[in-house]
């Protein structure tokens, strides 16, 4: 479903020189699978999420990224979103004055429009919202408040997954979704994510810790270090990392 071949990417800050972060990442995530990308801080995990979703300031120098055979890299972020790419942000943005529901409905309709589908009706939208909120144990009042404004870290993460349930993406990238969550919230969020697992969807879970992977079981685990995937394996690799640390596993290769 998603295929990266020898992807090199750099961050171009507004001031200061460009820095190469991804130094040849190759990765294949087939439909129906959940892959985890683990790695120490600064290894390029978040950059990978941003490059795939088209954030400004992240430049691809060489290599390719295709989604269902189509080159992703030339498309603006909203087109990638309409094709089904969703990034759950590590730090979701606060948008004052725009209620959650208003925003999600605008986003959903924009995606429908881009795909040539009809607008969702108000009753259908409200019904879907109620179901998603119940699943994630979100107080419906929260959905009337401005997006993320004054929400706790955990509430923001829950709201990312709420948006995911509402938008029904086909490929999900979860960037450090477990940070800021206590164990109960983690279970609720994982249940929400697992509800979207299906044969025609796939997922990339970016995480520093193995904890989240106890609740969202990956099919494959990749270790990213210094901009390269240096090791791939089954779910047991995550447990090894937890036990031996990145140094142990990374050192093995050298």
């Amino acid at each position: 479903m998603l295929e990266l071949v020898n992807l090199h990417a750099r961050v171009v800050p507004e001031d200061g020189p460009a820095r190469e972060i991804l130094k040849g990442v190759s990765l294949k995530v087939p439909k129906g699978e959940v892959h985890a990308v683990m790695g120490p801080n600064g290894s390029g995990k978040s950059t990978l999420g941003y490059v795939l979703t088209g954030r400004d300031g992240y430049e691809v120098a060489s290599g390719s990224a295709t989604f269902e055979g189509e080159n992703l890299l030339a498309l603006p972020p909203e087109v990638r979103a309409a094709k089904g790419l969703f990034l759950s942000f590590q730090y979701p943005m606060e948008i004052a004055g725009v209620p959650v529901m208003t925003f999600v409905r605008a986003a959903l309709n924009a995606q429908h429009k881009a795909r040539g589908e009809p607008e969702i009706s108000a009753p259908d939208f409200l019904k879907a919202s109620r179901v998603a909120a119940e699943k994630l144990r979100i107080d419906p009042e929260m959905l009337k408040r401005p997006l993320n404004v004054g929400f706790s870290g955990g509430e923001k993460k829950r709201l990312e997954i709420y948006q995911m349930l509402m938008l029904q993406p086909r490929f999900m990238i979860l960037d450090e979704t477990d940070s800021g969550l206590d164990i109960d919230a983690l279970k609720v969020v994982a249940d929400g994510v697992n509800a979207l697992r299906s044969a025609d969807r796939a997922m990339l879970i970016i995480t520093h810790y193995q904890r989240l992977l106890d609740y969202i079981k990956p099919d494959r685990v990749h270790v990213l270090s210094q901009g390269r995937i240096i090791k791939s394996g089954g779910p047991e690799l995550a447990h090894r990392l937890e036990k031996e640390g990145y140094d142990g596993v990374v050192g093995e290769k050298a």
Partner: protein
Amino acid sequence: MATPVSALHPPRSEEESALAVRYGGLPADVERRKAFEAFSKTGLPHRRLEGWRWSDVRAALKFATAESEDDAKAADLFAPLGGTVFEFRDIGADIPPDGAGVRVTKSSKPELMDWAGEAPLAALAVALSDAPAAIGIEIGKGAGTVRLSFISGSPGQSRHIRVRVLEGVEATVAETYLGARAFTNVTIEYMLDPGAVLNRLTFQSGGKSAVQASTAHVRLGKGARLVQTALAFGARLARLETRVTHEAGGSEAILNGAYLVRDGLHADLTSHVVHEAPGCVTRQTVKGAARKGGHGVFQGKFLVERAAQKTDAKMQHHALLLEDGAEVNAKPELEIYADDVQCAHGNTAGAINADALFYLRQRGLPEHEARAMLTESFIAEAFAAAEPSVADLMMREARRWLLAPS
């Protein structure tokens, strides 16, 4: 006898000569002469005049007779509010008779206000206002919204209006300034009796050949309250100036507004608040956004006199430069002579937050919609003090502007 025009300061431009001719054609009157003299001391305000550095009326008026492509299609935003409507056109005006809670007087004699020396355009409006020279509106209990609509095409108009809100009454006055071209120049004096409340709403939308100036002076009696909300889309030059005096203590003024300017348009929100009496409150939140070629101006001044102890005054102006080539000038000013006061101001100008923009686009919003949503979210605070249905009207109008192609 009016002073012969030739005895006054000689006109400095063709446009000033035309104004002098118009003055000369009006019935001779002592007050009118004083008003024209007050204006003539400076003439049409220009960039070298204090308070007009970024709003050069003299230069802008050279364009005010040109045909304009964008002949004003803007409708009166406040029409849904109904109420008593005064419609002022270039020639003639619809002035309603007395109604429930509203008393209307028409005066054939001009009357100059004592602050005219500081406001040349306001003095000019009084000097050139005729038929009637001045209109008085007294608002008492049971009055609905009073709407003042100024709609100009050619040759333009000058008006002088005095509004009094009686003791303990809450009034809503909605002003609309529309027109594709010509010079509209309006002076409005508001007098709030003790305990009166005035919700003042202003909507301004002019074309690239229009110069629209409104100078309002609001006198707040004991415990009176002004809640002002403005939305300005600009014109060749639009100047909405509000002068407020806290005269008697315990009064409050909220002076909010937003300007949204696109290519070729200029909107200037200027205010001058004088705290004469102790224990008064002023709150000001002005937000602006400018696209390429648009020019926004904010000038805010709080003057706290020695006697005005326990003054509590806060001023905020924040602007978004939506594209390269947008221009915003701001001058926040505090002048304080009392020692036991709380005064503060904040002033920023910046671009749309790139992180927020990416967040919205990642969820599927096209870039122009995402920008509109973020700008709307930025502007919204300026409408927050207005009644919710009015805030909603203004927000919807702002949204339309934001989603329109440039």
